[in-house]
């Protein structure tokens, strides 16, 4: 039904475009001057036809279920039901009206279902009537405007501009959405677990916080020593550190080589090949780390008499480092190439060799940009999920031994939220609190890094 109405509105929009344009031609044939090109008359009419109808249509779609629910449940209002029970009654009513109800049918529910069906059909038909009358009214208004040959281009362009502007708000809306989705759960979490325990506690055993019976009162002491995030934070930064130990030397040196030494031909092939590493999905790296690198390191360790866990931080961090190489190499390559040639020429003129020029002149000049690229790499390492989930352990050990397994923020979020979640449970909220801290940390890193890179670009442009 909704789909038919939707297509109908769209079709009406198209037809009114043609009517508007035809009207413009008839005005033209009476030797009057048009105020805009004929198609603007068409657009004008089409916009007036479709947009008000769509607005009503979507408002209806949003509010209809709520209003119907209120009307149905008003029958039960003074019988002392709890909210949950009322919801259940409503779900039963809906299921029965669809003929999918499989429980015992009480006369109450049956009456509600009948009422539900009649309400729905009233709502449907009144929706069609209202939408159609809105279309008629607005088209009539717009047609009158066109006939009197008033301006059409300006309103149409203004409308388009509003559409463009609204689209550009999507980025802000997404950020707001992220903050909203995180903040409420996080606040609820910190109502149960003190912030101090979360930030400075050293024991993280979310499995201990079993799903609580909702009728029971919340007992904060039950969760003491359960949600101490220090091991998680430590593990995150530790694995990121290992990753950067791999990525910075290799990435930076390849960036320098590509920018300063490589011939055009080498550059042409090597650069895209290295960038392939950035295009490989992280789940593939995770599989590689878990299947190949982990067991390989374990074997090497065992042959040297070391006790290496198959899910060591070294395996996850190392593979993550490989993933980050291309970020650092292409960013530092860009940064180095944008250092002005005059600096190089000056250094060569003083008799410096190429490597001396790079080390003493170009590198210091490009340092802010390189630092920015490294910070972006760190932010990526901290936010990386799949490699850690698959290759590193899921138990939160507080350790600085790269051969043992550790866990990270991202891995814990996945562990907690995989499968069914109960909102309102401290364990689920803990995942959101971790997400919030991850978001804040990466946000700070990104802002600083983008600032630094931008400042640097401006310096040489």
């Amino acid at each position: 039904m909704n789909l038919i109405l939707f297509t109908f509105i769209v079709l009406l929009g198209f037809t009114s475009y043609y009517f508007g344009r035809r009207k413009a031609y008839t005005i033209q044939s009476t030797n009057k001057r048009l105020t805009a090109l004929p198609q603007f008359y068409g657009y004008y009419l089409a916009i007036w036809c479709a947009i008000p109808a769509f607005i009503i249509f979507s408002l209806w779609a949003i509010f209809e279920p709520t209003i119907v629910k209120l009307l149905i449940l008003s029958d039960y209002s003074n019988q002392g039901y709890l909210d949950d029970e009322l919801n259940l009654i409503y779900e039963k009513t809906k299921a029965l009206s669809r003929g999918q109800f499989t429980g015992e049918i009480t006369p109450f529910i049956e009456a509600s279902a009948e009422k539900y069906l009649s309400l729905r059909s009233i709502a449907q038909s009144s929706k069609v009537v209202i939408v159609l009358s809105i279309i008629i009214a607005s088209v009539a208004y717009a047609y009158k405007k066109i006939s009197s040959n008033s301006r059409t281009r300006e309103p149409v362009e203004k409308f388009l501009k509003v559409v463009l502007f609204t689209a550009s708000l999507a980025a802000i809306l997404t950020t707001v959405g992220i903050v909203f989705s995180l903040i409420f759960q996080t606040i609820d979490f910190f109502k149960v677990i003190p912030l101090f325990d979360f930030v400075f506690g050293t024991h993280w055993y979310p499995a201990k916080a079993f799903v609580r019976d909702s009728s029971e009162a919340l007992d904060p002491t039950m969760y003491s020593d359960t949600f101490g995030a220090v091991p998680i934070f430590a593990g995150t930064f530790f694995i990121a550190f290992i990753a950067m130990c791999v990525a910075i030397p290799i990435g930076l040196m390849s960036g320098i080589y590509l920018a300063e030494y490589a011939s055009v031909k080498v550059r042409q092939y090597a650069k895209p090949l290295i960038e392939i590493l950035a295009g490989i999905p992280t789940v593939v790296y995770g599989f590689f780390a878990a299947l190949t690198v982990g067991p390989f390191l374990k074997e090497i360790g065992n042959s040297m008499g070391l006790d290496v866990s198959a899910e060591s931080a070294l395996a996850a961090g190392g593979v993550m480092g490989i993933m980050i190489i291309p970020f650092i190499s292409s960013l530092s390559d860009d940064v180095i190439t944008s250092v002005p040639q005059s600096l190089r020429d000056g250094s060569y003129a003083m008799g410096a060799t190429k490597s001396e020029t790079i080390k003493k002149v170009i590198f210091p000049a490009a340092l802010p940009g390189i630092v920015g690229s490294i910070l972006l790499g760190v932010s990526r390492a901290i936010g990386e999920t799949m490699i850690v989930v698959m290759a590193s352990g899921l138990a939160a050990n507080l350790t600085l031994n790269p051969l043992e397994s550790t866990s990270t923020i991202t891995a814990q979020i996945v562990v907690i939220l995989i499968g069914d979640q109960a909102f309102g449970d401290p364990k689920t909220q803990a995942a959101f609190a971790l997400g919030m801290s991850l978001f804040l940390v990466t946000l700070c890193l990104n802002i600083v890094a983008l600032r630094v890179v931008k400042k640097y670009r401006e310096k040489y442009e």
Partner: protein
Amino acid sequence: MNKNKEQLLNKRYKAEKRFRLYGQSAIFMALLFLTIFIFKIFSTGYSAFQKTWLIVPVTFDAELMMLEQNPSKEDLKDADYYDIALKSMADLDPNANEDQENELKRMVSYFFEREIKRELLNDPSLIGKTKDVYLTASDDLDQVFKGNYPRDLPEDQRRVTDYQLKIFDQLVELGKVESKFNLSFFTYPDSREAELAGIASSFMGSIFSILVCLMIAFPVAVLAAIYLEEFAPKNRFTDFIEVNINNLAAVPSIVFGLLGLGILLAVFQLPRSTPLVGGITLSLMTLPTIIIACRASLKAVPPSIREAALAMGASKMQTTMHHTVPLSMPGTLSGTIIGLAQALGETAPLILIGMVAFVNTIPGSPLDPAASLPVQIYIWAESAERGFVEKVSACIMVLLGFLIIMNLFAQIIRHKFEKKWS
């Protein structure tokens, strides 16, 4: 004095050479990782494209199938195939005791009944006759045949018994074991049994998610980019939008998963585990990528184009829509494809919105529960069975194949259609 100078110079030249070597070895290391990586995936994955079949003589005994004389097509569909299937497996070794018969049954997949049924439905005249039927071998025997299974382990550490191996070797000698292209890997949905697991369900899930993502992200991103590049006034608010976009491009993907979970599922009550929610979540992630690409290619359109159009009396909007935007389309499209390729490989946000659930049907619309290719990789990689290892690699090969095609496509669009202004 002179000698000293020469020594110094030599030292400096040596340092130069060393530095150069560091650079070369860094590139070499990066490429080495790539090669090892691709080699490892291909060497473990290629065997998944072959599937092992046992050729077993089946007697279509009407009595055992509970069929009457001259059965109709309906009767054939409803007939009991389990007994003849069981019997034909048991007949492989006439001396088998009850336990051994059970082991014989487990040499093939639990689809064996269906495979025999399909054979008869194709040719109803087979009733009462005996025919060699291809039955899917169990994943362990499949691995044995491909040589991936260590046969020299003690029996209690293997999932294949000595008895099964003995019968299997007899069949191999008789030429009754065949390896054929594994079509079911592409046409079957996911399964708990490695020999029957395919990528059809996750593939469709990926396709639906990407389509939803494209339909949302592309229009919104292009419109936003046009506004920001062509119309936005230079003020604080515009700067704020810009900072937002740049930050969103660097927010970890899992945070978008939390957004999908906390807003799309919890507040808007959209159906869990569906490509619809997955697509919306991914579209929020790709939005900044496409906006940035589209803005860059709008910026690359030279001002002279705009000035010429304006000079001819076109309005700002007409100039933008008729001239600037069409000229920027190649860059925008290739940026969009690259953004979609990233979205196609994304796993973590989809796990959070429940697309990791076990789905053994092929989704027919974005509203049916589904997995996606990368999530399928994760699910199989977490599974302990040996038969899944090669499946994971094969699935990775399919996924990488798609990513390569998409990236090539983006390159072609860029090189073929983009105008070079000089």
